[in-house]
């Protein structure tokens, strides 16, 4: 027996089927949560936001036209919610968070100790990327989104997706170098 497709679930949700809503939530809430959490960096806010994302799905299901895959649609809604939440944060707070991340990489004694563990350093450097770069790396590597899907979620042209990914990787290489790992690229 084949599992019901996401598109079928959306159709049932549009007619008020709560069970279909539960199934859709069970399928996707973890990945949506992780995507949002990487952007807002606050578990409690991320949990609130995923409730809002799926509540939007409940309300908007009838307008879903299937032009994009359901997971892509969910991430696009989630991104919009996360960015709106971030805009509510004062700029100083965001700057401090970003600065803290960068300082961590070069000065933190833990980072120096972790040089022996390349994987740990790589993860730390991934954490140190800007929100824009983290987002594109997550979408490509973890959420397995194609160039077209990333363009749709982020709302940028496909060529910009490729360029942004390149610069995100380049920045990652710089952070790795600062942490003592030279990869010979770029």
């Amino acid at each position, binding site marked *: *027996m084949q*599992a*019901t497709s996401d598109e*079928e679930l959306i159709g*049932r949700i*549009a007619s*008020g089927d*709560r*069970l279909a*809503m*539960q*199934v859709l*939530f*069970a*399928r*996707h*809430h*973890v*990945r949506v*949560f*992780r995507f949002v959490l*990487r952007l807002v960096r606050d*578990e409690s806010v*991320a*949990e*609130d936001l*995923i*409730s809002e994302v799926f*509540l939007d799905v*409940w*309300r*908007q*299901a*009838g*307008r879903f*036209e299937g032009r994009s895959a359901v*997971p892509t649609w969910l991430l696009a809604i989630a991104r919009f919610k996360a960015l709106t939440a971030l805009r509510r944060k004062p700029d100083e707070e965001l700057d401090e968070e970003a600065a803290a991340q960068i300082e961590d990489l070069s000065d933190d004694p833990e980072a120096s100790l972790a040089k022996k563990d390349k*994987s740990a350093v*790589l*993860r730390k450097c*991934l*954490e140190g990327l800007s929100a824009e770069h983290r987002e594109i*790396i*997550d979408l*490509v*590597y*973890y959420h*397995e*989104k*194609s*160039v077209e*899907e990333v363009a749709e979620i982020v709302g940028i042209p496909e060529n910009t997706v*490729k*360029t942004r*990914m*390149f610069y995100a*990787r380049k920045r990652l290489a710089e952070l790795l170098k600062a942490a003592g790992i030279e*990869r*010979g*690229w770029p």
Partner: protein
Amino acid sequence: MNAVGREAPERQEIEALLPWHAAGTLGRRDRERVERAIANDSELARRLTLVREEQQETIHLNESLGVPSSRAMEKLFAAIEAEGAPAPVRRSFDLVGRVSSLLSGFAPRTIAYAAAAATIAFFLQSAMLTAVLMKDHQDTSTPQLASANTPSNSHAVIRFSPQATASEIISFLNAHGAEVVEGPVRNGSFNIRFSADTSQSEVVRKVQRMQSETKVVEFIATKGDQGR
């Protein structure tokens, strides 16, 4: 020099595609293009290994974020209860209009064939939806995740109790740090996965604990046990 100059943009283009190649999300044409280039360029092949390292750690990092508490689900369904059914959409009316105008352009024989095909599709869909409703709570499956290549010793096979509700299943999986990655497979069971950094002995302990929760679990075994 000129040859290098001519090759450089092509190489840059291929290099820009490497992350999607590693993730398996390129279309056939681009995938074959990248594969050809890698086969003839050892430096590109080396860079692909760097991309794979980044991919692996990105997956690891995301999985280490854990799962949301049941609060998110409770809040959502409380809001849905308070709100009631979604408002009906006018789209269906427009659709009928569009279909009518489309059909008016076809010959009667074409319409007859199309109607027969639509009837079959309707019954197939109805059968599928009915089956889902009958086995409702088992339908917590998810498409394969980006990290489906995590070690198989962090996976288990589970069949949920028919009495378990969807919300109980979600809470249960969250509480044990597991997520459904595939299913339903054979006998209505699902493949679940624990986070990549869960050791094999920890997986065994978790599975034992999960076995005791008979209200939700009918059957569970680690991947290794299942084959025995």
